[in-house]
């Protein structure tokens, strides 16, 4: 379940970045692209990786 959530968050970061193209100001575009990038990184590092670390081989001893 966490893996599915992680995939969706990571992909939604990309969608947010693309949506920046609907804006006209470069400053606003920059902000939205960076927001999208941050969301994708959270999806990878904060959700997906954490899901795999929960059952990591080295935790089983």
């Amino acid at each position, binding site marked *: 379940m966490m893996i599915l959530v992680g995939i969706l968050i990571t992909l939604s970061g990309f969608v947010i970045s693309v949506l920046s193209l609907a804006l006209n100001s470069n400053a606003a575009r920059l902000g939205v*692209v960076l927001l999208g990038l941050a969301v994708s990184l959270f999806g990878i590092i904060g959700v997906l990786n954490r899901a795999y670390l929960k059952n990591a081989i080295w935790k089983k001893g």
Partner: protein
Amino acid sequence: MKIVTKSLLTLCFGALCCLAPLSFAQTPAAAPTTAPKAITDADVAGAPVPSADARSKGDPDGSLTGTASDIAVTDTKKGATIGDLVNQVGQNKIAINFVWTLVAGFLVMFMQAGFAIVETGLCRAKNANHTMMMNFMVYGVGMLAYWLIGFAIQMGGVGAVANLGGTPPLNAEHIITLFGKPFGIFGQNGLFLVHRGTYDVSVMVLFLFQMVFMDTTTTIVTGSCCERWKYAAFIISTFFLGAFTYPLFANWAWGGGWLANLGTNFGLGKGYCDFAGSGVVHSVGGITALAVAMMLGPRIGKYERSGKSNAILAHDIVIVLTGCFILAFGWFGFNPGSTLGASGNGSLRIGSIAVNTMLAGMSGSFAAMLYMWVRYNKPDASMSGNGLLAGLVAITAPSGFVNPVASVIIGLIAGVLVCISVEFVDRVLKVDDPVGAISVHGANGLWGVISIGLFADGKRHYGGSWNGVAGSVTGLFYGDNGGQLIAQLLGVATLVGFVFTMSFVFNLFVDWMVGQRVSAKSELEGLDLPEMGALGYPEFELKAEM
């Protein structure tokens, strides 16, 4: 520490001494004063040709070979005309560009050998055959996938590539409309290299050069996943990467897709720029490596129960550094070759591109060596090698747009970044990356892409435009309004958000289908016998792990 400080002071003194001779300027050569004379068909037809008698005696000094008699003539009765001459000049230009691009492609192909021995050297002897075989077969599996479908997806709609004499058959891009603008998604011509007229000399040259780039991407993943990746899973995963993931992003960046057209459609600089593939080749490989390595989990013994990371030592540092040299050599094909020519459209920039490449590699290895020396009191060999590769990866995208000083800065940052990133991936993410490929190619590929938005100096004209936008690529530090940087960051967001997801989802499918990871028993024994049926070093005495 003392020795490092002394060394730095000595280097600064040496640099000052080197700068001294720059104060002596050379006198410029005088410009020619006579006006050029128009030539006629009669001049061409009357050009001196060596006699058959003279030629029959041989030509030891080469003065009789390659003359007017070698020009292809359309009407033998009329003799050579200006039209024939002009056609010959055109063909010579394309021939130069063909040879240049093909030889550069051959150099990039040889990088496979460099990657193979770097990765094998960094793993343990008990996995040598398995790691070498993965690196060997990415060539075959990747090429098969790319020939079947990948090339068509990537380049099927690229349009004319002027330096290769145009590639007219590659003219069908699938386009959707978003925000009222056309978004190129994938190419449609070129399946099997015969589909819709793509059995064409220019298309063949383009295929060879692009194919070896794709192969570089696939070989990056094997490094991060070695010593625990099931061979069958590797084959399927590599096929998918060569057939779909790589070509799709490459189309968006190089094949006339939506990222390349961000300048035309949305006024963002010259659109997403990636001269030789920091993003397209290296980040796609590094990010896919992260997805698969995360899924595979670390090697047994890499982490203790407390989460403390253990170093698993390389078995042959000699071949690791030899491999780095082979890669640095091959990179002279990678970056300068990406002009796709040595004649016309600003292609003489190949000199600057080659020098930028070597400078960034130098500063990358230098920075990594110093970082490790200061932090751990020893100049670590494998990280010095990774620093060289990090500098080369980072300069790959900007090499065609920046000056030598920027190249050194980009390489220096890459050399430090790779060390910090390796520590972050190892200790914070706890993702086991035996060769550091996620950091070398993933992190530094992204840095290379971003660096264009900062350091591109706006003085490089490749036929007067880039991605269909007039003018030169210019970064924030050289007066751009930030549009170029945003285009680059959109590329980064696509790599992190889309390419990662695509690679991850497909490899989840592979995991479900055949399982990604070998059994613990096989891993402890070493993968050479269980997976490949033969040891890499049968005469070695291998230590069994408990």
